[in-house]
């Protein structure tokens, strides 16, 4: 029987895989260059919403703003829409003002990004970050996605070969698997999404360390840390911080809990809070809650 296209099966497969590997390596290298960002950029002077954007895009930036406004008593919920419950605090960012204004008309959280003023505030925020080399520009993203074409072409070759091979009654098992793998890579490359540059991510990691006290695992006292603390907590640790701060509000406002790339896979306080009474603790001597911090603390008569 003739080899399809004159190339023996095994040889083709090997060549195909090699081609795929080459494409992937080149794509990864190119992406590394594209996403590197400005090494010397600093994040210290960024506001919480900018940090939130780097951590979780538009949505987290909005959540961070909502967190700050809520902590300042300016936002509440009525039904499942956001409403104003107080005046706009002083010294807020354009995004805060935009959201607060939008809430005057009772808006759902998910519709906030459709509001014109909010949208433009977010755009300004993003371009500012791009200029500083902290956010990946749309052009860079587009370039990274070009590699999907290369992978796609490879996939197409594989499909043609598959068809030809079937017509010639050749065994095509391995080829099918290879084409599936290539298709998978094509899909991943086409869906490339990156918000923060590598430089920004490294800085964010440092920030998260420095502000570890705001992590939901510590059950931070948001009243003590203030509105800025609340906004920063959401920015660094994701929407879970909002749920930690004000669970009823977060639920009503339909805040999506998974909003943060790497902040926290929390899901209803599964992080067991700060206390260690999570079923496996040793030093707490079975049973009684250790209240690492709350309630158990020392002294006196009956906690009111």
């Amino acid at each position, binding site marked *: 029987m003739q080899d399809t296209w004159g190339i023996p099966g095994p040889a083709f497969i090997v060549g195909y895989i090699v081609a795929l590997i080459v494409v992937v390596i080149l794509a990864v290298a190119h992406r590394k260059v594209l996403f590197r960002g400005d090494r010397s950029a600093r994040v210290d002077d960024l506001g919480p919403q900018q940090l939130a954007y780097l951590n979780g895009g538009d949505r987290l930036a909005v959540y961070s703003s909502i967190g700050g406004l809520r902590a300042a008593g300016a936002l509440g919920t009525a039904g499942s829409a956001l409403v104003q419950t107080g005046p706009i605090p002083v010294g807020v960012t354009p995004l805060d003002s935009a959201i607060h204004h939008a809430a005057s008309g009772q808006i759902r959280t998910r519709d906030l990004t459709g509001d014109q003023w909010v949208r433009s505030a977010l755009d300004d925020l993003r371009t500012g970050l791009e200029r500083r080399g902290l956010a990946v520009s749309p052009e860079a993203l587009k370039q990274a996605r070009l590699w999907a074409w290369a992978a796609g072409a490879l996939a197409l070759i594989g499909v043609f070969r598959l068809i030809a091979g079937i017509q010639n009654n050749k065994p095509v098992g391995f080829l099918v698997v290879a084409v599936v793998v290539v298709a998978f890579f094509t899909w991943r490359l086409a869906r490339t999404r990156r918000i923060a540059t590598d430089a920004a991510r490294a800085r964010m990691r440092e920030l998260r360390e420095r502000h570890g006290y705001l992590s939901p695992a510590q059950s931070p006292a948001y009243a003590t840390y203030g509105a800025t603390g609340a906004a920063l907590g959401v920015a660094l640790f994701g929407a879970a911080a909002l749920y930690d701060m004000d*669970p009823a509000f977060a639920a009503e406002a339909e805040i999506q809990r998974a909003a943060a790339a790497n902040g926290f896979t929390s899901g209803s306080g599964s992080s067991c809070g700060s206390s260690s009474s999570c079923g496996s603790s040793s030093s707490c001597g079975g049973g009684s809650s250790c209240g690492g911090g709350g309630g158990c603390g020392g002294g006196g008569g*009956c*906690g009111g």
Partner: protein
Amino acid sequence: MTSPIEGGREGDHPGQPGGAPRSLATRQAELVEALTGGKPVPYGFDAFKVDAARVALLRKRAGEVARQWPMLAAGFGDRWTASFSAWAATRPTQGSLRDGWDFARHLRSKGELPAIAGAELAEREARWSYAGSAAPRARRVPAVRSAAGAVVVQVAGRIRVIRRRGWAALRRS
């Protein structure tokens, strides 16, 4: 720890009718039971004050459970302390995690679990196996649990909430 009777006073409240000496341990146990298990206040104590202490204890407990089960507490809003205290008045504490768990299960069995607390309970049920009599243990096998309309799947420690509060959206946590 008992000490020899001195002048017939040890363990005996002056005036207590026909009292045999009772050890400190027994009397401490009686007090604890009065405060946590709904038993009557032991003889000689100021009942008003002991009851004030009992109520304060429940309030403190409610606060601790709310920290461990925020969505459950949020579902009750202002009525949380009252609702929890009413249930917990005759049940001594097993630690705030277990207290909240038992309470949530109790509510679920009566169909009164608040909607927003459903996912919280379902997730914990899926992650840990808790029989009610010992500390919860992490599950090794995948599990699906549901509560108050929320459905949660757990595979290898990762949680996926399938339905939360009637929303049909699929989310990965």
